[in-house]
């Protein structure tokens, strides 16, 4: 009898063993080569530039592709695949001349036709690319994507093998920088047309950047190696980069400490606080193009009242939140636009506009009472409102701190409500909330990436804010090529926004990372992940 049981148990085991194939050994990398090891946190949804969405895709793409423009060692936008460009007097027609010595990783020459094909492909409604809207600056881009114009109407055209002409809908001084953005990277027309699944397998994958894809073990690791066909290969010191795919931040930190990674970003919050406190030299607080803020639902009482909104914002002690709670080197918000965005004179836009956020604990209470009176409400009525945030330890701590600040400074008792991320987005879209936590990460280094969020009926304007003067200023800024007018309009618009307070900015994010002392040459620009293109390992 016992033997039978043993047989059955082993049968079950054998069955499972059979399907499992018992795993397999993997060879380790060549140690003599300079391979930088880091963690990409999540499996990319695709490594096709047209289909890429977030950081998990773009960090890899930034190393294996190159756009018309690129960033140099110091993060400055310089010609990449293009050797020069010309902007016509109409301020919307760009002509790019490509370099002569540029090749794909399979040896094919990179042509202007490749660019034309790639951009139109990304706009193709059939592709259903999430980031298609990065191409909406191009004339008829949006129309083609929503089926209102044909592919040929899109104003990007290869005049010959090496000349590309692009016409924009409106002047967009940040368009040059956008051509260095991963959605606008080219793909090899011949390769893509011959094999629609080219981007799924390293053996058929073709790119044009400093590195090329070598290995992709799904949910385990991605290895890129130096691309010998890259025109500037002599400047590239690393032989390759190994991105492992490990979702758990704490385990990743253990691996960094254990010497299995040379570089790590992001870091667990507690680790940043600890490294910061002990002034650890391996910690670098990189800048980030993003702002953490609270939405007020301006469509419901009493948040429709500007005094109530101002009072709630005034009663938040942002420095305490940054120093005692977030602890990642964040900066207290001074407006909706974050730091490190240059203005028309090359100065920091934020510094020039100054701090537009007032914190005044005494004044706040008075203002709140006035506002509530106008709405026919009392302090006690505030107790039924709640702060909506998506479930996360960090958001919870900040919400608790703000709840406490409002209790102490204003005498109101708001509730906290945490929901799953998707549920929060749904409720914000439906206007089913009072105050909600939100954040915005800019796409390009220009105040406009934040400013146009809050135009009437903007797709991410969940506060329901609508101000004719604001809309007009944004329109002016978007349609002019005069940098002075553009920036002045944006400055004026931000003032209006901060006077009306449909949102209360809390802090500007940072991107802390850790790198071993022997790693050099990593560059971090405000809107991109750290770049290893010019990095080196000096062990």
């Amino acid at each position: 009898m016992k033997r039978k049981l043993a047989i059955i148990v082993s049968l079950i085991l054998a069955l499972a063993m059979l399907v499992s194939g018992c795993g397999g050994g993997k060879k380790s990398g060549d140690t003599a080569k300079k391979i930088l090891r880091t963690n990409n946190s999540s499996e990319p949804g695709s490594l096709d530039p047209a289909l890429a969405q977030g950081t998990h895709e773009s960090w890899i793409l930034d190393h294996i592709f190159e756009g018309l423009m690129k960033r140099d060692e110091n993060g400055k936008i310089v010609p990449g695949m293009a050797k020069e460009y010309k902007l016509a007097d109409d301020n919307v027609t760009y002509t790019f001349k490509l370099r002569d010595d540029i090749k794909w990783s399979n040896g094919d020459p990179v042509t202007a036709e490749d660019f034309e094909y790639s951009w139109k492909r990304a706009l193709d409604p059939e592709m259903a690319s999430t980031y298609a809207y990065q191409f909406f600056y191009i004339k008829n881009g949006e129309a083609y994507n929503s089926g209102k114009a044909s592919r040929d109407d899109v104003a990007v055209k290869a005049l010959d093998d090496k000349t590309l002409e692009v016409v924009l809908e409106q002047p967009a001084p940040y368009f040059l920088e956008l051509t260095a953005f991963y959605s606008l990277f080219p793909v090899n027309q011949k390769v893509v047309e011959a094999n629609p699944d080219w981007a799924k397998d390293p053996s058929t994958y073709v790119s044009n950047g400093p590195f090329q894809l070598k290995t992709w073990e799904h949910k385990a690791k991605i290895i890129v190696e130096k691309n010998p066909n890259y025109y500037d290969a002599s400047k590239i010191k690393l032989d390759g980069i190994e991105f492992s795919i490990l979702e758990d931040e704490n385990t990743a930190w253990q691996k960094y400490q254990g010497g299995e990674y040379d570089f790590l970003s992001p870091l667990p919050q507690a680790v940043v606080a600890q490294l910061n406190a002990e002034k650890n030299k391996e910690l670098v607080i990189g800048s980030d193009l993003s702002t953490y803020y609270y939405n007020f639902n301006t469509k419901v009482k009493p948040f429709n009242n500007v005094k109530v909104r101002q009072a709630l914002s005034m009663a938040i002690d942002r420095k305490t939140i940054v120093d005692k709670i977030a602890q990642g080197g964040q900066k207290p918000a001074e407006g909706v636009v974050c730091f490190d965005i240059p203005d028309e004179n090359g100065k920091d836009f934020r510094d020039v506009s100054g701090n537009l956020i007032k914190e005044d604990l005494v004044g706040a209470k008075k203002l709140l009472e006035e506002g509530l009176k106008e709405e026919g409400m009392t302090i006690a009525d505030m107790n039924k409102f709640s702060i909506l945030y998506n479930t996360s330890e960090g958001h919870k701590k900040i919400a608790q701190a703000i709840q406490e600040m409002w209790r102490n400074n204003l005498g109101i008792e708001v509730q906290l409500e945490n929901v799953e991320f998707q549920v929060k987005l749904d409720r914000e879209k439906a206007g089913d909330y009072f105050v909600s936590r939100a954040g915005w990460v800019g796409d390009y280094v220009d105040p406009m990436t934040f400013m146009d969020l809050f135009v009437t009926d903007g797709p991410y304007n969940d506060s329901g804010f609508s101000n004719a003067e604001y809309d007009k200023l944004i329109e002016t800024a978007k349609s002019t090529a005069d940098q002075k007018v553009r920036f002045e309009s944006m400055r004026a618009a931000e003032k209006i926004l901060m006077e009306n307070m449909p949102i209360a900015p809390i802090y500007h994010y940072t991107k802390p990372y850790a790198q071993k002392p022997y790693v050099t040459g990593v560059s971090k620009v405000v809107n991109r992940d750290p770049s290893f293109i010019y990095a080196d390992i000096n062990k």
Partner: protein
Amino acid sequence: MAKYIIKRVAISLVTIWAIITITFILMHSVPGNPFRSESKMPPGVYENLLKKYGLDKPLPEQYTIYLKRLLKGDFGESMKSRVETVNDMINRGFPVSAYLGLQALIIALCFGPALGVIAALNQNKWPDYLSMVIAILGISVPSFIMGTIFIQFLARNISWLPIAGWGTFAHTILPSLALAMMPLAYIARLMRSSMLEILGQDYIKTAKSKGISKSAVVLKHAVRNAILPIVSVLGTLVSNLLVGSFVVEKIFGIPGLGMSFVSSISNRDYTLIMGTTIFYAIILIVMLLLVDIAYVFVDPRIKLTKEGR
């Protein structure tokens, strides 16, 4: 026996259909969808996405399309990945999870019953207390703490094993251990109480009074009967271990199915939710069926033949 199995298979098919339908309805009634995110996505782009994945069609139509595809064994395209289909993800993830689960099961089955027997034979003496302390630790300390402790002490402090990742046998040891603790403890406790009950039975006394040696009594009479409850929990246990654990896979960075199972829900990756749920349901049902059949062999009191009834 054959008739019984046919009947059970038929019931299983109906159960799976019910699971598909209920999951489908629940999934679509939860707020959110695969393409919504914190972004400025214009409505046109959003509509293109809905159209590509057929989400613009009415739900009943989506349901019939899905069922038709499923009958061909096609779980569809993942809505978050343009690289792997749901079938690809299961084909890749399941072997990894199953391998790990199997190792964990072997550990649990080797040490769990032994611990329980030792405890029962030494009731209220120190071996009993020791095994039960281990068992209580195993049940009450969640696997993410266990995993973190293992990483800290066995991989970081004394670098015997790699910290995390996947590839070699060494990579599988810590996660298997973390995964095995809970079932091991559960089996040990079950075995202990079941042994204690059996040891008090008349036939054990009879066996003892007949002068049979203690080890023979324990092994031939007590353990054989006491193991029955464990066989009955084995079905659920095996299926749980085979499809993998979200927590353990996340901590150790293992490319298994357990992670997909949970993250598909927060991503609202509809096709992956359906695929993993159906797959898990099938495994669970098959395992339960196997256990019921195994019971017939193990327990002489259960007979499915007509004479037996």
